């Protein structure tokens, strides 16, 4: 499995990468921590932690307001972070709106569509593997406008039915909102094909990239995607910050989401004019420190190279799947050809929550439950899954500990 190709992260380097994450050097319940819950949130490298500490220690100040030095420093760092994130996803900086996270970004778009675009009888296409945060905002929008949420089905491997998707595209569809990577099954969807098919009919596409950002290189202009949402905390950055990428034409067109400071050009009691995007969508004092932390996080990931992270994780995922497959009675939920990050499974008739509790006793952090994809679990007729989700700082030892831990759990539950 070891490789010396420059394109790949070699094992010595993997150890150095792991060393940059202080939290991983601890024991939990008496055993060295194995952190395999990266789909829920990733850990933070020391450079991110330092950037945030430096902000509060040396130049904490409000942005876009003061003439004083600290305010200018804070504004410069906040806007530099926007440039860093823009470069990370191949966008212009004025197309990057800071949000609270992916959920907030999707709500921003769904709210705009509800207000100005959706009409009775219109349709919004999502898929059967969406996270609740890419289901409920569209349901809320559609309920109010008597529009319909249409769901692209999946096959038993957890892959989108693309023939069905093609047949669902028509003039009533106002947007396709789909996840790039399934948080439950790790399926990587054919987003290029989805975008080009939708665009053939003049339909915009929103990608939920929450589970893609730390694993797959993102080039929004090459993809020609209309909207893309991601969360900082799933990308080695802090919580409370994420972004919405929107094509300039769309950000101009969408109405403001919230009103307040920073998003205005001029306010009178009769009429307010709004700031240009992206500030039009950033009402109130933003999460300045978190944005700076996110900037440091994408700088960290860029330096390593997401394509190299991707190649490393691909090998690690294969190693994990092969190792887990050796556990008697284990079945995978989701066996897509193209996958990334998450590996979901069940063993025999054990309940995922029981397995999760017993793994925790052995210092192994996984997620159990429905992973905010209840409709997907209903589809498979299961209460949830045990999900191990990988990041670049995981290694084969983590996987070996997981396999050993699951075996022990299953024996105890026997």
């Amino acid at each position, binding site marked *: 499995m070891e490789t010396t190709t420059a394109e790949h992260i070699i094992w010595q380097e993997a150890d150095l990468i792991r060393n940059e994450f202080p939290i991983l050097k601890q024991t939990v*319940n008496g055993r060295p921590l194995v952190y395999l819950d990266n789909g829920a949130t990733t850990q933070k490298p020391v450079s991110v932690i330092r950037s945030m500490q430096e902000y509060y220690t040396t130049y904490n100040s409000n942005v876009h307001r003061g003439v004083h030095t600290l305010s200018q420093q804070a504004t410069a760092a906040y806007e530099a972070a926007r440039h860093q994130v823009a470069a990370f996803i191949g966008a212009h900086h004025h197309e990057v709106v800071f949000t609270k996270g992916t959920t907030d970004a999707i709500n921003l778009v769904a709210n705009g569509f509800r207000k100005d675009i959706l009409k009775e009888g219109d349709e919004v296409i999502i898929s059967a593997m969406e996270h609740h945060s890419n289901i409920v905002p569209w349901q809320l929008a559609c309920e109010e406008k008597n529009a319909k949420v249409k769901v692209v089905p999946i096959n038993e491997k957890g892959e989108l039915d693309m023939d069905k998707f093609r047949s669902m595209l028509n003039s009533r569809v106002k947007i396709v909102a789909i996840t790039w990577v399934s948080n439950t099954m790790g399926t990587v969807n054919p987003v290029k094909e989805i975008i080009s098919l939708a665009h053939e009919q003049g339909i915009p596409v929103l990608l939920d990239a929450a589970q893609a950002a730390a694993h797959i290189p993102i080039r929004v202009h090459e993809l020609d995607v209309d909207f893309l949402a991601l969360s900082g905390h799933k990308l080695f950055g802090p919580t409370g910050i994420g972004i919405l990428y929107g094509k300039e034409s769309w950000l101009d067109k969408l109405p403001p989401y919230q009103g307040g400071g920073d998003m205005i050009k001029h306010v009178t009691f009769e009429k307010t004019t709004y700031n240009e995007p992206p500030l039009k969508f950033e009402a109130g004092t933003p999460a300045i420190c978190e944005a700076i932390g996110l900037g440091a996080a994408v700088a960290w990931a860029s330096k390593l190279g997401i394509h190299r992270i991707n190649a490393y994780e691909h090998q690690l995922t294969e190693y994990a799947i092969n190792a887990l497959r050796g556990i008697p009675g284990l079945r995978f939920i989701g066996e897509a050809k193209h996958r990334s990050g998450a590996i979901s499974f069940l063993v025999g008739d*054990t*309940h995922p929550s*029981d397995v999760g509790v017993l793994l925790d006793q052995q210092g192994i952090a996984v997620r159990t439950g429905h992973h905010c994809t209840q409709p997907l679990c209903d589809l498979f007729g299961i209460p949830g899954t045990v999900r191990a989700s990988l990041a670049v700082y995981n290694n084969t030892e983590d996987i070996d500990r997981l396999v050993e831990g699951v075996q022990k759990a299953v024996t105890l539950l026997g």
Partner: protein
Amino acid sequence: MTIKEQQDRIIEDFEVFGDWMEKYEYIIQLGKDLPLIDPKYKTDDNLIRGCQSKVWLHAELIGGKLVFTADSDAVITKGLVGLVIQVLSGQTPKDIAEAEIYFIDAIGLTSHLSPTRSNGLLSMLKQIKLYAIGYQAKSLQN
């Protein structure tokens, strides 16, 4: 046995376990041994939803004592439910309503009561208290 005596007995039982595996083996066994709830009571009305696992709880007042039967789809949750039932079932509504539950903490299983576990155990304890308070109020009216 009073609720306090039941709790102290469980705490004493747990003192013999050398490591987490023995402790969980015992809980899992309890889960497997818990008398089955009558299927007619395994209804949506009796369902206490946790995010992770489900708990069904049925309460009946028999001779002035509240008797609980329960089930869960997860065996560790079921074992924990079994412990709660050992402590509280067959006691009077007044005693249950006034009881302080300390044994879960004392046997090192506090994390199972954390809301993030969402295993239904915390909601089940609340529901048992609500039944007790409800029956107590009812008996005062009569």
